[in-house]
């Protein structure tokens, strides 16, 4: 009997896992004992970190797109379709458009994050973002011609993708305007929902003095409640109102509805054992990346490391051996601190981050990794 592994989602986690399994399970795939299907609703794989550079005119959205069928090993069945329902009892997926269904023996959910700006009245009309291709290009149109006024960067949704990116944006904007002799005419304000500038206290402690030194205004305990696009103001639940000329937000995030509909967790995040990444509410289901509710950042590095763990566990299970691989919370992030300097953090469940001193070398390391990411997607790096 052929064992069928189905991966839903062709982002970093799903794609790395598919290629990992193609390599790890090569004998079983060749023999027809195992079949692996990767399902994605877009024929392209999208590498989102490119979007940070788009508003500054440094990258194009197409730099972050490649066809999945060029990235994924031929031993994997690639299906471009949208899953509309999961029945974990009968181990079956339903597809929206066609009405077809597919059985699985083992399921991996890597459906990722979606943006939900409509949660905040006025945000879609009044705000910009760089967390989507269309958002990044629309923001570029505004930012490249922005020469004076107030920029407000408001972190609204948490958890959100790439927790370092809001800090990176204000550090880059500060440097970018400074280099062009415009900084005195541009106010930069950063807002964050809790009492410090980042969720992780160690990163917050590192970032705050840099923000103060560079005259980046900070509003903490700021949870956006509404945006008035005509008056160009953003108001918080805490009662603070800020004027803006250009509002850049990290919109509220959510997972896909089918997770909650399947009873696997709230808001589209699958409740998992944070070490084994197994779903708590169903058998033979894993989740990884943003989809897995582990409390670690929603970051590509996390999805990458978790894919390796799930790959090893699946291979053990398929071969009838105890699965011993576990995820230790490993996270790795470069943090741009300007247009030509960056820091770097590495941490896990037990070890807190300790940001490295910013340097040009780390900035180029980040850009070099972004270029070589396609090797990661192929399962080579």
């Amino acid at each position, binding site marked *: 009997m052929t064992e069928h592994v189905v991966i839903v989602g062709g982002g970093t986690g799903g794609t790395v896992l598919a290629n990992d399994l193609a390599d790890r399970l090569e004998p079983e795939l060749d023999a027809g004992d195992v079949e692996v299907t990767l399902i994605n609703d877009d024929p392209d794989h999208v590498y989102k970190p490119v979007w940070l550079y788009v508003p500054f005119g440094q990258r194009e959205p197409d730099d972050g797109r490649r066809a999945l069928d060029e990235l994924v090993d031929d031993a994997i069945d690639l299906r471009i379709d949208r899953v509309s329902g999961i029945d974990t009892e009968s181990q079956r997926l339903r597809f929206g458009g066609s009405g077809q269904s597919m059985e699985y023996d083992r399921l991996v959910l890597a459906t990722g994050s979606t943006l939900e700006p409509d949660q905040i009245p006025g945000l879609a009309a009044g705000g910009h973002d760089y967390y989507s291709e269309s958002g990044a290009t629309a923001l570029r149109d505004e930012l490249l011609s922005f020469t004076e006024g107030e920029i407000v960067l408001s972190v609204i949704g948490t958890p959100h993708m790439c927790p370092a990116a809001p800090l990176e944006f204000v550090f880059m904007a500060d440097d970018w305007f400074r280099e062009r002799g415009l900084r005195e005419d541009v106010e930069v304000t950063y807002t964050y929902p809790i009492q410090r500038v980042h969720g992780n206290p160690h990163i917050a402690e590192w970032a705050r003095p840099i923000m103060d030194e560079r005259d980046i205004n900070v509003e903490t305990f700021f949870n956006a409640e509404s945006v008035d696009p005509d008056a160009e103001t953003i108001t918080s*639940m805490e009662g603070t109102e800020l004027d803006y000329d250009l509002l850049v937000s990290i919109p509220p995030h959510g997972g896909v509805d089918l997770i909650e509909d399947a009873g696997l967790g709230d808001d589209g995040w699958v409740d998992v054992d944070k070490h084994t990444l197994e779903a708590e509410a169903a058998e033979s289901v894993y989740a990884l990346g943003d989809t897995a509710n582990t409390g670690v950042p929603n970051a590509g590095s996390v999805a990458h490391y978790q894919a390796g763990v799930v790959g090893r566990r699946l291979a053990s299970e398929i071969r009838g051996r105890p699965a011993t691989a576990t995820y230790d919370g490993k996270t790795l992030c470069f943090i741009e601190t300007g247009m030509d300097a960056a820091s770097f953090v590495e941490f896990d469940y037990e070890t807190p981050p300790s940001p490295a001193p910013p340097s040009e070398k780390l900035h180029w390391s980040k850009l070099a990794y972004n270029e070589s990411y396609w090797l990661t997607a192929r399962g080579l790096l």
Partner: protein
Amino acid sequence: MTDIEPDATVDARGAACPGPLMDLIGNVRSAESGDVIRLLSDTDQSLTDVPEWAEEAGNELLGVEELDDHNAFYVEKA
């Protein structure tokens, strides 16, 4: 035991800091004025985070219940 009847409970046990406070804020955001949200947290940081935010946002922290391995915070939305 407290006799406060919550309208909703947020179980953030096991969530790393600042998870519990963010979970609470998310629930208060969607609650009605006057609703009481109960937050369950096993992170000590919540003992300072939650009162600070409640005061900042003008919501009332009705009480904190110390349980075996976690605390229950009762916050009424203003």
